[in-house]
């Protein structure tokens, strides 16, 4: 693979920036690890350390309320030297994971799937960022850097998702399913990406193959591969932990039932703190159903652009999953530049960006007022999470509108640039 000078420059600069940050501010990683915006109960590095400590001392880390991450992370991290004595190797691992994620983004961008796919061809193809710019946008996003320095384990989920997409756009449907299996194994919710991802693979297959395969059989085959990969990973996990139900309920049960209401940037925690006990289960069901409902709607309406469905679903997850953090937002922001050609069609970018900036600046301040200064109460931080979710959902809705408008313009070449309305 030819590597040009710009790629090396961006990747090297991203690496050096992170290294500089941890060398100049050695306490920064621990500070970020403790931030609720970055670390949630399901991706906190401190909780991973605690799980690792118990694991290396032959205490089941799942027989407790602290560790809720996938079992395979334990042997992986037990290979690394202790973080308290030697933090650099772990940090370097996270830097490299970030670079690998950026590399996958370059692949996705360079495939051109976002502008030109089997069923769709964007009108404004010429307005486009190249792969290196997309990667740079991802690597120098402060949210990505914060996630990387905080050593949040959601970067591995990000890797799984980005690899699944990059393999899907290059036609390696089996690898895509394996990567998606890995991501789903780590944090459960990526499994919802299965339908658009299979459609993406299917469209790729149609493009390359002479004889189009049967859609249903193709889908079932890939569902089988996904399930097999998850089952394989779960099998490995059983070998590690020895108790299947214990780790299942401590990891996936924890994702599903949301027992830990530690504050985060999402909408679930405060809602379920304040929810009346008798309605808790009902609203848990409603919230999950709501999250899953976007898959069907987006996939059907945007059938021609499955990659855009994947990107939008990542945005939905960043807003509505039970334990969201800014790493989910950073993944969504990383996929947005692939759709640079939609930016001229978006209507509320200023409002959305203002809301996001407003909440990301005021969020830490309000959290401080509540938890440390005591001069504010929980509503301060809660209000900011509402604004954050609102900003993200406006951005999401606006980009979906732009994509639909783009499709409409493709169908009506004569009406380009005219005012449109939805009826």
């Amino acid at each position, binding site marked *: 693979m030819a590597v040009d000078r710009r790629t090396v420059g961006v990747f090297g600069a991203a690496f050096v920036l992170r290294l500089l940050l941890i060398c100049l501010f050695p306490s920064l990683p621990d500070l970020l690890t403790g931030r609720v915006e970055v670390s949630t109960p399901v991706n906190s590095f401190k909780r991973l350390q605690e799980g690792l400590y118990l694991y290396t001392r032959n205490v089941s880390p799942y027989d407790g309320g602290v560790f809720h991450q996938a079992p395979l992370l334990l042997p992986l991290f037990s290979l690394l030297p202790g973080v308290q004595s030697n933090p650099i190797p772990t940090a370097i691992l996270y830097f490299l994971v970030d670079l690998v994620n950026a590399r996958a983004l370059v692949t996705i961008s360079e495939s051109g799937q976002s502008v030109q796919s089997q069923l769709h061809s964007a009108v404004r193809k010429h307005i486009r960022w190249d792969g290196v710019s997309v990667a740079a946008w991802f690597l120098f996003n402060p949210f990505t850097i914060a996630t990387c320095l905080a050593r949040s384990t959601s970067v591995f989920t990000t890797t799984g998702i980005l690899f699944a997409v990059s393999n899907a756009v290059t036609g390696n449907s089996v690898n895509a399913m394996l990567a998606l299996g890995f991501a789903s194994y780590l944090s459960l919710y990526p499994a919802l990406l299965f339908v658009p991802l299979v459609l993406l693979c299917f469209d790729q297959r149609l493009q390359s193959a002479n004889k189009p395969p049967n859609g249903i059989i193709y889908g079932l085959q890939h569902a089988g591969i996904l399930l097999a990969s998850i089952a394989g990973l779960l099998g490995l996990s059983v070998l590690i932990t020895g108790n299947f139900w214990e780790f299942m309920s401590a990891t996936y049960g924890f994702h599903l039932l949301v027992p830990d209401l530690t504050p985060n940037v999402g909408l679930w925690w*405060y809602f379920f703190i304040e929810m009346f006990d008798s309605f808790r289960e009902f609203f848990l069901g409603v919230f999950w159903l709501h999250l899953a*409902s976007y898959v069907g709607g987006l996939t059907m309406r945007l059938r021609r652009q499955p990659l855009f469905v994947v990107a939008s679903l990542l945005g939905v997850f960043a807003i509505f999953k039970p334990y969201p953090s800014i790493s989910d937002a950073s993944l969504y922001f990383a996929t947005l530049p692939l759709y640079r050609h939609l930016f001229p069609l978006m209507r509320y970018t200023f409002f959305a960006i203002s809301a996001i900036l407003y909440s990301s600046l005021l969020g830490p301040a309000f959290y401080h007022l509540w938890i440390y200064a005591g001069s504010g109460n929980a*509503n301060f931080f809660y209000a900011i999470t509402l604004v954050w979710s609102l900003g993200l*959902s406006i951005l999401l*809705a606006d980009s979906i509108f732009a994509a639909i408008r783009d499709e409409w313009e493709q169908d009506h070449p004569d009406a380009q640039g005219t005012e449109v309305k939805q*009826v």
Partner: protein
Amino acid sequence: MTALFLCSLLLALAVTPWSSTAFASPDYHEQLFLQPLPQSSLLASFNFRSNTSQQSFDNQHFRYFPRALGQILQHAHTKELHLRFTTGRWDAESWGSRPWRGSKEGGTGVELWAWIDAPGDEEAFAKWITLTQSLSGLFCASLNFVDSTRTTRPVVSFEPAGNHQGADGLHLLHGTLPGEVVCTENLTPFLKLLPCKGKAGISTLFDGHKLFDAAWQSMSVDVQPICTAEGECTVQIEQTVDMVLDIERSKRPRANPIPRPLPNDQLACDTSKPYNSEDTCYPLERITDNAWSLSEVFGRNLDGVCPLTGSDGTSEQSVCLRVPHEKQVFITQEASEIKKDDGFTRCFSLSPSQAFDISVPEQTVTTPVPIEEPILNAERTIVGHGQERGGMRIIFGNPSNTTAVDFILFESLPWFLRPYIHTLQATITGQDGIRREIPTKDLVSSTYYRPAIDRERGTQLELALSVPAASTVTLTYDFEKAILRYTEYPPDANRGFNVAPAVIRILNTPDSAPFYIRSTSLLLPLPTPDFSMPYNVIILTSTVIALAFGTVFNILVRRVVSVDEATALVAQTVKGRLLGKLIALRDRIRPKQTKVE
């Protein structure tokens, strides 16, 4: 073993009235031990003990053993029971070593541990719940709140004090209620368990007003089987009440309890100070002890002797006082005084029918009573600020210059305090006074850790530690404070939550008898939500979700058309046609209006 244990307990208090006759079957003993402590305090240790043979216990023939408690124990299959009610703090720095070597006291609040005979863990827990519910009723305490989150199963911190045969099926369960306020409603049922029920003997001194006004007090109930080498078993119940009264405070008359400053002419001032004058005084340290008498301090008289006490001579000396022999002590006429050989202890033979009183006049201290130095000083505090996370710091000081102290630290933490054991760190300050960090494995020889599960069980941590001679060890670990559902907070949510005291069991005591220290309980502030607005939160969150859902699906389900097409399309719908008619109507009316104008 048990005889040795009891003997050593009594030796610690320099009282040896009964050691050979302790296990004669059914009998009852009571003893009051008084010792003035520095800072005008008075330690009063009451001890009541009775034995019943195992056979009559099993047949429910209760004589001295309280029937109410006996039947609860039989119903809950409890073989050994220890119940403690404690308030206040033992000031080890000025008062020295604890009475009964700490084995008769509990942590602040209520502490209960029992050995329950059951085939499995679950059955044992079911029996335990039965036991706590029944004891809750018996002692008017909130013991029914000892649920699975407050119950632990200590592994090395406690050992049965009684002799158990076939101890395979015994399960030790331990529960604490650090927030329980011990008060008179617990004293009344406690007194009812005594054979004389507070009507005669030393138990007549108990007055709830004085007892719970003490700087420190601990009530205990211990039930344990005692077996001889021949296999004869008795069930022993021992009840103790220990308290440290502030003499001056206790002497205040009940009708007029407000303390008032001394008149100027009664003040002892340091006249050598340059600023000493009519209105300025540097108080001199007292050189005399406070005068006190039993009736003044306890507010009641000691009414005779409980007639059920054994008649073997020694048990008649049921009141002992530990002051130097040269000190003057006045007693009621009918009673007689016996001075012990140790130079400090004197015991009194009471007249069975007469009220008894001791009066110690104010006099100059010549030879102070030696106070035993504690083997280990322990202190536990929460460090850090903010409601998000914090740290626990436990400081152990070994005052001995020669021997190291080995002990077990037992902590049971509530589930909403999430400790990170990987952050456990130790620093040591040796004789040189230099503080340095050392790996924890140099101090901690073994660890038993059972992490908490949210809303199911609390954390249980047992560490076997060793503190070298003349050094101070500080253990720290981080923890995170969980945020609870709003219904899980108590009404006074911002007061904080009580964390049970740590129990320290010292292993290498000189005579291998148990020695316990308990730290003070802690107050843990948790982050709180806004309790006033569950509806608002539900509505606002739902609005944001509805807004996102509505916008996205509105965009997804509607058709995109150009503006011109839109007007044409709108005109064809029913709504559009109606609107068109309305406009036409308006146009027809409007021209008329303009004409009128």
